[in-house]
């Protein structure tokens, strides 16, 4: 009955590789997000999709590309991985754009680039 799930939980890879992180929510929400948490625990939004449409795209390198095949899924693909991409990536979802609506977070994916 997991609300927001991410796979994989851990990802260790070499510089220059391409990798994907998958996110799925079973809450029926129409908005999904990707956040990056750096080594100092600072959380920053990267992308957001509402009904499969990109609505937030922060200053993120072009190597990062989100893909939303349907409302319940938002995957993150990263090309040409760099050392600085090492972080924990969190997926989240919410219902609509009402500011009162809580975002539900997944358990995170710890990406380590060697």
């Amino acid at each position, binding site marked *: 009955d997991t609300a927001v799930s991410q796979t994989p939980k851990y990802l260790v890879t070499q510089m220059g590789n391409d990798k994907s992180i998958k996110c799925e929510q079973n809450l029926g929400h129409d908005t999904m997000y990707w956040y990056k948490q750096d080594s100092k*625990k600072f959380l920053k939004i990267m992308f957001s999709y509402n009904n499969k449409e990109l*609505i*937030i795209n922060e200053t993120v390198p072009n190597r990062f590309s989100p893909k939303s095949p349907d409302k319940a899924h938002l995957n993150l693909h990263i090309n040409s991985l760099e050392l600085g991409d090492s972080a924990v990536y969190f997926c989240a979802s919410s219902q609509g*754009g009402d500011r009162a609506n809580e975002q*539900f*977070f997944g358990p995170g994916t710890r990406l380590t680039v060697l």
Partner: protein
Amino acid sequence: AQSVTQLDSHVSVSEGTPVLLRCNYSSSYSPSLFWYVQHPNKGLQLLLKYTSAATLVKGINGFEAEFKKSETSFHLTKPSAHMSDAAEYFCVVTSSGTYKYIFGTGTRLKVLA
């Protein structure tokens, strides 16, 4: 523009004593404010939220927060700390018409036996 400042990066309390985690915000519009908790190697869990209703908000696990517009603050309190409260706490601000959460830099709470 919105921003949020968590005034303490680390807070240590003894078990059974009160907890105070401080948060100040800046927002051009009526804000919504949240407190999330992150236990080690876990995701974020909502503790409580303020959305322009009652200014004193009660959350889970005995936590509460008071929205003070005049002080632009939303401090998190708990009367008696428990060992299981040791975690990272994040204050978040957002406002009407935006999907964006703006996170504070976090406060690590340590509870001493």
